[in-house]
């Protein structure tokens, strides 16, 4: 395996931004699911 210290992070500037994006996406999904449940119930 290569030494990845200097590996370029794709799409975002830092891993922190990646993590926030994944968590944010989950929060959005939960809200969408909530409205989906309410709408069709």
């Amino acid at each position, binding site marked *: 395996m290569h030494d990845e210290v200097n590996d370029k992070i794709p799409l975002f500037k830092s*891993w922190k931004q*990646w993590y926030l994006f*994944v968590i944010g996406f989950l929060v959005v999904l939960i809200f969408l699911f909530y409205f989906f449940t309410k709408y069709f119930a």
Partner: protein
Amino acid sequence: MSLLDWIVMAIVMACIVSYGLYKSTTTKDLDGYFLSNRSMPWYMILLSIMGTQASAITFLSAPGQAYTDGMRFVQYYFGLPVAMVILCITFVPIFHRLKVYTAYEYLENRFDVKTRTLTSSLFLLQRGLSTGISVYAPSIILSSLLGWNIYWTNIFMGGLLIFYTVSGGARAVAYTQQLQFIIIFLGMFVTAYMVVHLLPDGIGFFDTLKVSGRLGKLNVITTGSTDNGFNWNDRYNIWSGLVGGFFLALSYFGTDQSQVGRYLTAKTLTESRIGLLMNGLVKVPMQFLILLVGALVFTFYQFNQPPIFFNETQVEKIKSSPYNDSLQVLQKQYTQLSEKKQALVREYIGDYKSGKDARESSAALQEVNSQTEALRTDFKKILDKEDVRGDSNDTNYIFLRFVVDHMPKGLVGLLIAIIFIASWGSIAAALNSLSSSTVVDIHKKFVNKECTAAEDYSLSKWYTFGWGVFSIIIAQFAGNMGSLIEAVNVLGSLFYGVILGIFLVAFYLKRVSGQAVFYSAVLVELIIILSFIWPWIMKQWPSLPGILPVAIDRFMLVMSSISFLWLNAIGAIGVVIFALVFQLFSKRQPASV
């Protein structure tokens, strides 16, 4: 199945095996066989970890789960994206830096040999048993379709799988999973389209959602609250999903070698991280779509007569029992109610489409739906009777029965093939990981430390073969476990929490020694297993509560009433707390990190 279905199925399965074998050239040593020479890009990691998690059980049980219990099962995956983030921050960099073959190697560095061996043994026990269930899942399809003996079907199914897994190692596993996933998604989308297409003229996708939602199947978000407060025994709600699901996912992806072994094949740490984070992004929507197919199938059966029970073998069992007359009465009532329901569904759709007040037709529809459910329950009660002893859970048969009865020729073959290859993907990864842990954590540690590269390679193949045979043996006993997807998750929850607890102590509590974490893990595992079998113990020895101290009796009663997802959190937190307590009373200093 028609001849065309058989041809489609044979071609798809042959393509998968051939492709896997064609792509399986690696160096003949442990690095090549178990880690594919650490050469995989992120998208291969993503497909491989998804293919490992999504077995045939996912595609058989999940739509059935949505049919019977609604879509709330998706909440079980809510903790997964958060777990992916924690893994990328803590677990993955350490595994990559140490260049380990198995996750458990790290525990010897951090603690001692006995903690490593205990953890890898818990993994081997849990994974070995659940792989057996995964072999059984596709076998029930063949046996119910062709009337084959289930025992021979298990052997046939597992035998085909062992063939390419033993030959190709991790590389064959990864490349077959890549192709498998593409075919699986294609098949599921075509099925969803076909369900809507098979509905009566004028009924569209939105209408199916309205009906399904009105009958309680689109309950994606539930809170688990009742009039008496939070229901801890409720299996799937947003809280058990976020908390229990988080611990389960962290343990599964961070400490289960069948998953760790997938992302250790990445060529860089970045590729591993991106693969895991992408999994965090796509897993929940993917599971939502699979469950939605189940909800659509449910709506399909509101316009068409469903069988009273989807496992035909069990219906035949009652027919040949003294309860045949009761069955005839139930079936007659069920047919009458289904016809009434079909008329009411049309009335309800007509009402809301024309802008009329649909409350009355909706209430009538819900009432009839409850009555049909009650008839199904009555049917299941007959199966549970002592002189019938049938399997009263048909969740795994719902989707399969729909496919065979209603899908067009050719597509049935494709979907049956999909169920097989999905199963192969996860079992192949499991066998590969079981073998890697046995060779690296047990054999090379205790049996023969001085193996040459060629001996390692040969040994790995033999252990893969051995675990394959073991899984087939377990599959022979997997018949009465209810919903298979739940059986696998329940089994995992008995061990995952403790394994995760050991790793959490290793990563975050640098002052705790191996001695403290070892005894803590043994104690918590015993408590969890005891609490799981507590109802059975009480049945065998009813006088036990009188002998035990009241506090212990009450504690075990509470523990045994908690839903399995919470066991992951309890196991992990329990190990951490007891390890801290034991460390306080221990004079030993922790080993160097």
